[in-house]
């Protein structure tokens, strides 16, 4: 956000943009809206209002200082906003600080809010995966699906010791789920945890993978539990963390973006 650059942008119709204190106040109010918008639903109203009023007072004082130096009100407002920091950066800084001081006794306070969201989504995903493994354990159907080939022909494509796909529809469901689950869980984690989502996924996935490995070992000779643990290491962790990171970045960008623009002369 470069106020000088923004100021010198010509308007479409070439007309002089509106100047004056009203426009400067509008810019500051717009900035404050963008600063507080991402905090809605996370930070209590009283804390948000406190931040807003302090930021308002700060920006107004700064703007007045520039006006006293002979700068036009709109330029003074833009300069003050620039020095204050982008609404995105400031809202992120506030969220990070606020998350450090969550009320005692909650799960989020113990493990961190992003970790709580990651645990919620990846915990559910792991639980469903384990249920599918249980179904495979108690309702096995080991007849192979041959895809119209003979057994030796299929074995040329899938050599020993790899297991052949079997007729049980839960086999397909299990593998489809193992592939899709981290994409969805990572995405939802990123959408809800605005900061530190990828790190949270990594931390939570370490615990869940260990748990899956222990349960998978207990369910031997059915190997799907161990396969699930392996898939978690090589697919769920990187894809889940990547998707969480991308989703949280997009969500932040959508909620936090602020571009100070002048109103065109009507």
């Amino acid at each position, binding site marked *: 956000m470069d106020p000088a650059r923004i100021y010198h942008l010509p308007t479409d119709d070439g007309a002089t943009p509106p100047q004056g204190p009203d426009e400067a106040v509008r810019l500051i109010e717009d900035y404050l809206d963008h600063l507080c918008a991402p905090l809605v639903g996370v930070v209590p109203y009283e804390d948000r209002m406190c931040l807003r009023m302090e*930021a308002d007072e*700060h920006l107004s004082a700064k703007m007045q200082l520039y006006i006293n130096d002979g700068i036009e009100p709109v330029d003074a407002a833009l300069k003050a906003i620039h020095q*204050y920091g982008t609404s995105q950066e*400031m809202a992120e*800084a*506030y969220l*990070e600080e606020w998350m*450090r*001081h969550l009320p005692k006794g909650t799960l989020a306070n113990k493990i961190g809010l992003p970790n709580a969201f990651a645990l919620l989504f990846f915990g559910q995903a792991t639980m469903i995966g384990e249920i599918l493994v249980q179904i495979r354990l108690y309702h096995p159907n080991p007849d192979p699906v041959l895809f119209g080939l003979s057994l030796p022909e299929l074995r040329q494509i899938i050599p020993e010791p790899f297991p052949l796909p079997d007729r049980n529809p839960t086999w397909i469901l299990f593998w489809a789920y193992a592939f899709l689950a981290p994409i969805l869980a990572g995405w939802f984690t990123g959408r809800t945890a605005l900061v530190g989502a990828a790190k949270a996924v990594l931390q939570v996935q370490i615990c869940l993978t260990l748990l899956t490995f222990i349960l998978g070992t207990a369910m031997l000779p059915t190997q799907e539990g161990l396969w699930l643990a392996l898939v978690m290491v090589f697919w769920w962790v990187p894809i889940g963390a990547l998707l969480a990171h991308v989703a949280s970045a997009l969500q932040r960008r959508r909620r936090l973006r602020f571009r100070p623009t002048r109103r065109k002369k009507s």
Partner: protein
Amino acid sequence: MSREKALNRSHALALILSVLRDAPRHGYEIAREVERRSGKRLTFREGTLYPLLHGLEKDEMIAGEWQEREGEKPRRIYVICEAGLAELDRQIGLWRDFSSAVESVIEGESAWNAFRRKLAPKLLLRGR
């Protein structure tokens, strides 16, 4: 790395507490005072001040109170508390340790080398 990036959270907390130690101040005044005392060498995004102030208030290191002003926008004045003074002492101790260690490395002289160069000859002379 820009200077504002180098100013991490614990440094910023120490700066805020040390400015508040001398007098109760509001956010804008704290920013100006940091700028003035550092001779404008320490600059940071002024907006980052308020999350830190609110964090310090939640930790009961400082206390904030709204000050109503006639015809002007209200200000929140912050005062340092006992816990804040203790934290400031701790931060100053940490900073002094850190800066003396860095200085030693930059000067290229360890504590042992300084001892050998300055004190050891005197002790040897006294022994004779």
